């Protein structure tokens, strides 16, 4: 432990290329055709410490018994087909350059009750055997989701296990209420469907194991102001004011610049 500060600072660890580099606002490299681009560009990526509600760690796992796919095969397929593995009614617009550190993706979905939701995530970390998405301000939850694959043995049988692990807090008081009344179920359904889709991709029909653990029951009241960025409210207002924007369009000044 006698290494100097200068020596440590000059070393480039082998994980360096796997992490996002920006600490300021999220930037989209391009907007995919058909995507509703709201509540992402210019927003901060937020982790589980910045949310409001109780902190949950949710783990969804599926054993790819009978498949000879390696963890690297699973993660490569998962990155490539991420939008296809999502359940109907939720659209994940992956970055055009693929799932790579620092890239942002748009999500067009709906909240329980049918309210449209436009939000997004940033790729916080990506390597050959895992990748992590971090939510942006206004997303229903503040946190990250890590997708990984490992080889595990059980009863003398070895197989690859695919996993999604969510570490999150509801982002604001409104979402915290929503999470209690259907939000958690909806989220479980998304990841259970996703894991089942990953297994199917490798020809495996298997049960997804879900483990939900409340890590911290206490809400963080100082984060109640996150509601200002609530993407559900903002998306709803955007949809409601669509006729006004349509009428005003002929009178609006054309945008200049790039």
């Amino acid at each position, binding site marked *: *432990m006698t*290494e100097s*500060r200068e020596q*440590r*600072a000059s*070393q*480039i*660890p*082998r*994980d*360096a290329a*796997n*992490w*996002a*580099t*920006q*600490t300021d606002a999220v930037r989209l490299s391009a907007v995919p055709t058909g995507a509703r681009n709201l509540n992402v560009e210019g927003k901060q*990526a*937020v*982790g*589980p*410490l*910045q949310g409001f509600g109780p*902190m949950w*760690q949710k783990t969804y796992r599926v054993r790819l018994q009978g498949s000879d796919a390696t963890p690297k095969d699973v993660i490569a397929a998962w990155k490539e087909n991420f939008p296809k593995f999502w359940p109907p009614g939720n659209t994940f617009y992956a970055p055009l350059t693929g799932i790579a550190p620092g890239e942002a993706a748009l999500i067009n979905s709906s909240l329980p009750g049918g309210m449209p939701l436009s939000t997004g995530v940033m790729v*916080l*970390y990506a*390597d050959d055997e*895992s*990748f*992590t998405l*971090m939510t942006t301000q206004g997303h229903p939850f503040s946190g*990250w989701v*890590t997708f*990984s694959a*490992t080889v595990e043995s059980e009863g003398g049988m070895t197989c690859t296990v695919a996993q999604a*692990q969510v*570490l999150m807090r509801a982002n604001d008081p409104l979402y915290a209420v929503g999470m209690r009344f259907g939000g958690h179920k909806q989220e479980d359904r998304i990841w259970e469907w996703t894991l089942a889709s990953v297994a199917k991709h490798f020809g495996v029909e298997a049960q997804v194991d879900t483990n939900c653990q409340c*890590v*911290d029951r206490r809400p963080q009241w100082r984060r109640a102001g996150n509601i200002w960025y609530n993407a559900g409210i903002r998306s709803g207002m955007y949809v409601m004011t669509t006729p006004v924007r349509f009428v005003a369009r002929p009178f609006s000044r054309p945008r200049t610049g790039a």
Partner: protein
Amino acid sequence: MDQTQTFGVRATEGAAVIDITGELNASSDPALSDAYAQASELSGLILLNFAGLEYMNSSGIGLLVTLLIRANRQKKRLAICGLSDHYRHIFQITKLDDAMKIYETEADALGSDR
């Protein structure tokens, strides 16, 4: 235990130090948790010394979040020292620097507590 990672615990004046060396990833969970349990019996201030950290992935950062929550619940203070520029940057991106006190060196951390 995985030979690519160690979590040594030692008592110093005013703090218990966990020296994190090698890798911090999902497989570190039991060893880090044990180290934390030992450290929390020694002092109210637990200092994670990252000077020997060689590799960390996002699961490793997740472990630090759950460790922080555990420390808060037990009314212990968790502080960090010995981060390289690279890992300090990761603490900024993940916003862990909002929630944990970060010191340049172990001496700085222990000095500030006196």
